[in-house]
Structures are given as C-alpha cells and as structure tokens.
C-alpha cells in the first residue's frame, strides 16, 4: 500500500521498545527533587535510606512502572475491543468501561470495604468494567453499527457516572464528591508500590487472556461466519476476550482513575504498520500505549503549577480531537 507497511513487525516492536527505554530513562530523570538517578537506584537496591533512594525508589520508580502497566493495558484493550467489535471507535473510555470500573472502585473505597482486603478494590472495578462492557456489547455490538455502539457506550457511561454520583451522596465522607471529580480525571501522582502490586498481577492476567486470542481476532476480521468456519467457538472466544479486557482495565482504573483515549488513538496510529492484523495490533498497541502514557506523564511534570495537571486531561486533550477526526472520517459508514 504505502511505505509504512514495509516495516516488519519485529522491527516495529524493536523500535517501540527502544523508544520506551529512552522515555523511561527520561521519566526517571523528571521530577522536582534535585538528585542523582544512578546514585538513587544504587542506594535503593542496596536498601539504604538516603534521600535519592527514597525519591527514586519510592516515588519515581513505582510511578514509571504504573505508567508502563496502565499505558500497555489501555493500548492493548483498545486494540482488542476494536477487533472484537470490528469497530474503529471502540475504546475503554469512550464506551464507558472505565466509568463502570470507577463505579466499582468507588463503591469499595468509600464504604470501607477496600481497606479490609487488597482484592476488593480491583475486584469490584473488574466487575464494574465487565458489566458495562457486556451491556454495551449486548446493546450494540452485534449490529456492527457505529452509531448504535457509540450511543450504547454513551448511555452506559452516563448511567455509570450517575450511579457514581448517587453512591457518593451516601458516602460517609463529606468531601467524597469533590475528591472523586478529580480522581476520575486520572492521575499517577503519588502512587506507590502497593498500587503496582494491585495492578500488575491482574493486568498481566488480562494481557495473557487477550494475547492468547489474537488468532481469533485475525479470523474475526473476515467476519463471524468465516471465524466459525475456521473452527473457532465464537461465544467462548468472545467471552475470554471480554473477561480479559475487563480484568486488565478494571485493575488499572482501580489505581489510576480513568485515563481516556489511549486505547482509541494508539491502535489507529499503529494499524497500518502491522498489516491491519488485529492480533498483532494488540502487542504493538500495548507498547505504543505504554510509550504514550510515559511521555504524557513526563509532560504533566513539566508544568510548575500549584496543582499537578491530571494525566487523564492530557490524554483527553490529545485523544478527543482525534476521536472527532475519526468520526468525520468514517461518517460515510454510519447507519
């Protein structure tokens, strides 16, 4: 088609990984404390409690790791949802999956359940994500109409946001509403290794579930019937994908709040480079998503303002115009 498609898949992944490593080094160097990164890492590994070790090990490292995990998850889930729904506008944020996860998370956070055991917070977020995704899928996924999908997503998203508001009304803390407005914008500020240990295992499980279905997604791009005739049990494969997406997105939203549009933008940018194969797109989008989120996180730390700019705001500022552009581009296919 064009020059872009001549890049081989391993080369693309290699380039993305190189860029990720460079961005990660930058991210570790980004921060307001004036310390040596190398000394900090060395001290942290040796278990010393110097200022540098503390800042690098307890503040910047977990933040970087979370950016990588969450970016990868959002990128991969976006690619998986677009493949599954065969619809370029699918994304965890746009279709309300993140709001559903946030609703689940908020229910446990504000009523004291989250503190009782570590699994409640991500567990509830995953259930919320799964419920929303399932509803959107049932309401619109089968028609393949973009308008129906976006409307179903918007409706579910509104329902979830309304449920969040109702829940917060009954929360014992008077400041719950103000707090959650900011939390919903998504942020990686002041997250620590406890958050990593909540998000990483579940996100990894979700990744494995999604990646294991890449051959099904390739087959599905030819149509439902073709996938069936190729020997896939469509119901089962779809179920595993929906569950995988929900687990990964739920685990991430539980620690970072809702960070939007990464799952929409990244698969679009990378699709031409992977020969339009949904299976491969998931891995490439995971790398690309991680890269975008690490870069966005470097960006939010550049501004010296009274309050840190929320990372979800940055991704939305990049993503929402892109979303509009996509709608305009695909307008002819709407029905």
């Amino acid at each position, binding site marked *: 088609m064009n020059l872009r498609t001549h890049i081989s898949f391993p080369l693309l992944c290699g380039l993305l990984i190189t860029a990720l490593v460079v961005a990660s080094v930058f991210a570790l160097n980004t*921060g*307001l*404390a*004036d*310390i040596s990164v190398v000394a900090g890492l060395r001290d942290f590994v040796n278990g010393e*409690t110097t*200022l540098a070790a*503390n*800042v690098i090990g*307890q*503040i910047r490292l977990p933040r970087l790791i979370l950016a990588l995990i969450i970016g990868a998850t959002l990128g991969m889930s976006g690619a998986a949802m677009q493949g599954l729904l065969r619809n370029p506008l699918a994304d965890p944020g746009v279709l309300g999956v993140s709001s559903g996860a946030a609703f689940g998370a908020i229910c446990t*956070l*504000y*009523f*004291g359940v*989250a*503190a009782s055991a570590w699994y409640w917070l991500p567990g509830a977020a995953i259930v919320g994500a799964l419920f929303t995704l399932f509803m959107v899928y049932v309401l619109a996924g089968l028609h393949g109409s973009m308008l129906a999908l976006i409307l179903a997503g918007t409706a579910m998203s509104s329902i979830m946001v309304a449920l969040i508001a109702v829940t917060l009304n009954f*929360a*014992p*803390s*008077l*400041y*719950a509403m103000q*707090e*959650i407005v900011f*939390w919903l914008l998504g942020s990686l500020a*002041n997250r*620590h*290794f*406890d958050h990593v240990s909540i998000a990483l295992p579940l996100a990894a499980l979700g990744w494995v579930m999604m990646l294991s279905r890449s051959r099904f997604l390739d087959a599905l791009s030819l149509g439902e019937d073709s996938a069936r005739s190729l020997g896939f049990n469509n119901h089962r494969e779809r179920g595993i994908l929906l569950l995988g997406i929900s687990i990964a997105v739920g685990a991430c939203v539980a620690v970072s709040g809702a960070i939007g549009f990464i799952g929409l933008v990244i698969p679009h940018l990378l699709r031409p480079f992977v020969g339009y194969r949904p299976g491969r797109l998931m891995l490439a989008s995971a790398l690309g998503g991680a890269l975008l989120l690490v870069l966005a996180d470097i960006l939010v730390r550049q501004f010296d303002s*009274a*309050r*840190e700019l929320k990372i979800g705001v940055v991704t939305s500022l990049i993503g929402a115009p892109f979303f509009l552009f996509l709608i305009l581009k695909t307008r002819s296919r709407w029905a």
Partner: protein
Amino acid sequence: MRMFSMCVVGLITKPIVMAMGFLFFVLSGAATAQAVPERIASLNICIDQLLWELVAQQRLVSISYLTADPIWSPIADQVKTLPLNHGLAEEIIPLKPDIILAGEFDAPTAIELLKKLNQRVERLPLPRTLADINSQIFQLADLVGAGEKAQQMVNKINRQVSALQALNTGSEPLTAFWYSANGVVIGDGTLEHELMQLAGLRNLAAERGMYGFNQLDLELLLSAKPQILIVEESQDRSFSLAREYLSHPALASADFKLVRLPAGLSGCAASVIGDVAGVLQQELAK
C-alpha cells in the same frame, strides 16, 4: 515593686494572654443593650459546639444536623435529643428562635430568606488567628449572654497555649512542615503557622514564601529534609482519598520525627485549639 515587675514580666512572656484580656475588656464594654435571647438556633457545627459549653441546653431550639453526626462531632451522643436543622429556613421559622447564629460562609440563601422574614440572624467570622478564636468565643458569649463561661473557656485555651510557648527556649529551632490532607502544606497567615511559631519551630513552608494552604510536591517536601513532620489524625474514620497522601511509603522511610495531632483545627478551631496545642507541646517535649 517586685510584685509589679514580676507581673510585667509575666505579661510580656504571654502577649497573647494580654491581648485576650484587652479584647475581653473592650468587647464586654461594648455589650449591646439588647435583651439576652432565650431561644437560640444555630446553623453551624462549630457554633453548636461552643454553645453546648456556654449555654443551658434548654435554650438551644435547633442545631446543625452535623453536630449530631459522630463522624464530625465529638458531642454527637449528647445532643441526640435536640431538634436538628439542615440549613433550611423552613426548619427554623416554626421554632420561633430569638436569635439565629451562623458562620461566615453558611447557607447564604437560607440566611437571606430568614432575614427577609424578619428574623435576627448573627454571623460569626471564621477564626484565622489565635486572637480571632478568643474574640469569636467572646463575641458569641456576648450574643447569648454567657460571659463568665466564655472567660473560663478562653483561660483554659490560653493556659495550653502558654505551655506550648514555654517550649520556645530560644535554642536552635527545629525545621518542620505541617502536612495536611491532599499533600497540602500550611504556610504563613494561618493558625497552624502561629502555633508552630509559638512552639519555636521553623515553618519550612512559610520560608518557601507560601501563604495559606498550598500543595507541595512530595519530592520537594523530602528534599527540604524537615526535622519534624506534623500531621493531623483523621477527623472521621471514613475513607478519604485526600488522606492517601499521608500513607505514602516514601514518608515512612524518610528521616524525620512524625508528630500526630488531633484533627479539627481546620474545622472547628475554637473547640479544639487547646487540645491541639496541648498535644503538640507533649509531643515536642518528648
């Protein structure tokens, strides 16, 4: 003569006590000729707590619903039988109060309405300094006719504040941050800053040129290497994202003395200031 000079020294070392005495003198002199109101309604949890100390409970015809909520109020159990309001005019009017008390920023629409209905509404300003607290107590006492009790209350606060002041021995001052919820440090122009000054601490936030309440990046907070970090206990036991900041492991592995104070200074300062000063004094003396 010796007695007199001791007296003078005593007054100089306790300027706040002196200022309070003067304020009380002025305020009591300026007491209004209005009759002492018998039936009192209050829209503010802090005013409720002060009234509870100052007047007989039969005179309270309505208090804020927050005062009856154990999450927010230490006297919740004791006020269960009193009628509650939610800051709505229609809850107040049928009770026919002689005076309605509200805070500076309470329910503006309800207060406008109450005034239109010819009710006597008095608004008390929020205290921002130690002197404000005492004058707030006296102002309230003046409105409800409880000067004697107010004097006892103020004396108690002044005793605890002077004990804190006694710690300030003029030796090399320790550096400190007052670290509040949401990663906010408290700078100049606040009650907290005043307490730190009295205790002889160097407020690093004020030295950075911060005024009032400002968010401070965790990395900068650690880089400043404070010797003392003052945090407040959670006011309520319910979850709050704002308090997540205080559980960051980087704070646990940093090298400073952590001082935990009772909550509520940013809420009802007048009713907790004495306790806060007392605990701060005990913690620093350790």
